[in-house]
């Protein structure tokens, strides 16, 4: 016990010795690269990780990562590994590889290598201890580097997608004189709802719309915030003298709105877009308020 403690203390104090150990470790891992790589690939397959990739692809990546891994251990510089991990993430993120798979794969490599080291040095516990002291921190850093690269890549993709969703501006379409439709598709968050309200109100002003049909067929889910945004949009349109008709509320959304107790009293709702347009035509026809039709006011409506 005291011997082991002294050994550890010696090793911890002796940077030179640690470098020596690391060199030995790297040489060992290089020598045994073939069986260790195969073992790693076998474990990946048996744990059903990276299911979206073919066996050859897994093996190619395993080979490349293994080399980078050992290089990083040797040089203590993680840049090459980081670059490779980022590049790898760029390739596998779009294919739907999950974070837990990547973490699993990285931890498997640690496990495979640690087992190999145990096997190699089991006759010499103090040496094993020293080797592990040198190996563990580096291995942890490598595992973190690879996982973080993957997560960062995923986040970058998510940000990019959010951006493009936001850029998909919601068009306000004029169907005929005084009638606009606003088809809403996708996720409606607070920012987009605000943008949408502004666009709609300006369109009401420029096209002198009387009726606006807001179609939410393309909206999958709705929550309290979004529902209130829609109510506010309808009210703002009304303040500007335009009637809003909401169409395409799915039964799930309708139930959610009822469950959430959102006050939709101000909204005129019609089942589908076609019905909404028909309702809009009726509203416009029965309301001779528009200046162009004002001249023809003497004509009976029937």
């Amino acid at each position, binding site marked *: 016990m005291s011997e082991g403690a002294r050994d550890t203390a010696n090793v911890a104090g002796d940077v030179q010795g640690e470098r020596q150990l690391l060199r030995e470790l790297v040489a060992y891992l290089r020598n045994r690269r073939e069986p260790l790589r195969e073992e790693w690939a076998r474990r990946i397959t048996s744990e059903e990780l990276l299911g979206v990739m073919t066996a050859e692809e897994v093996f190619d990546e395993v080979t490349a990562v293994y080399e980078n891994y050992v290089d990083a251990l040797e040089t203590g510089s993680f840049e090459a590994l980081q670059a490779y991990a980022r590049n790898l993430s760029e390739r596998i993120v779009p294919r739907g590889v999950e974070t837990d798979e990547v973490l699993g794969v990285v931890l498997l490599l640690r496990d495979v290598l640690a087992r190999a080291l145990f096997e190699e040095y089991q006759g010499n516990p103090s040496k094993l201890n020293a080797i592990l002291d040198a190996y563990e921190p580096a291995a942890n850093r490598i595992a973190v580097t690879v996982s973080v690269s993957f997560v960062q890549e995923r986040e970058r993709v998510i940000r990019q997608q959010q951006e493009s969703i936001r850029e998909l501006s919601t068009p306000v379409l004029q169907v005929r004189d005084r009638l606009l439709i606003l088809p809403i598709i996708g996720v409606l968050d607070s920012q987009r709802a605000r943008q949408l309200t502004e666009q709609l109100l*300006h369109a009401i002003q420029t096209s002198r719309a009387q009726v606006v049909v807001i179609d939410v067929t393309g909206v999958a889910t709705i929550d309290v915030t979004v529902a209130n945004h829609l109510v506010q949009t309808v*009210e703002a349109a*009304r303040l500007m*003298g335009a009637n809003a008709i909401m169409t395409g509320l799915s039964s799930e959304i309708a139930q959610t709105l009822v469950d959430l107790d959102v006050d939709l009293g101000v909204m005129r709702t019609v089942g589908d877009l076609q019905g909404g347009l028909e309702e809009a035509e009726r509203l416009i026809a029965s309301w*001779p308020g528009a*200046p162009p039709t004002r001249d023809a006011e*003497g004509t009976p409506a029937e």
Partner: protein
Amino acid sequence: MSVAILRQGEYLIASVQSDLTDREVVDVRDELSRRVGAERIRGIVIDVSVLDVIDSFVARALRAVAATAALRGAETVVAGIRPQVAIAMVHFQLDLAPLRSALDLDEALALLDALASGGGGHGG
């Protein structure tokens, strides 16, 4: 005076010229409700298109004008609320109900005509 009140047939048009002080809001309200009775007015248009802000005080005054005028037989329409003002109003939950709104003065007059000719305008 920052509100010009013009008469056009049976309608009064109150055109707001600049931001209103609280005092002026009260004066306009009183003036309108007095003239509705005195001049047998059937409709009021309050044009607020120059206003950058409609706060709770102005909103309440508009509702009060409408309620008073309604009791004396006149409809009130608010005209020309700008998009940004409308957004701010719904954001602060300012409601003009039961007041009607119209896009601009033209629309407001047309709306009053339609109301006068029988609500929904089913007749000519």
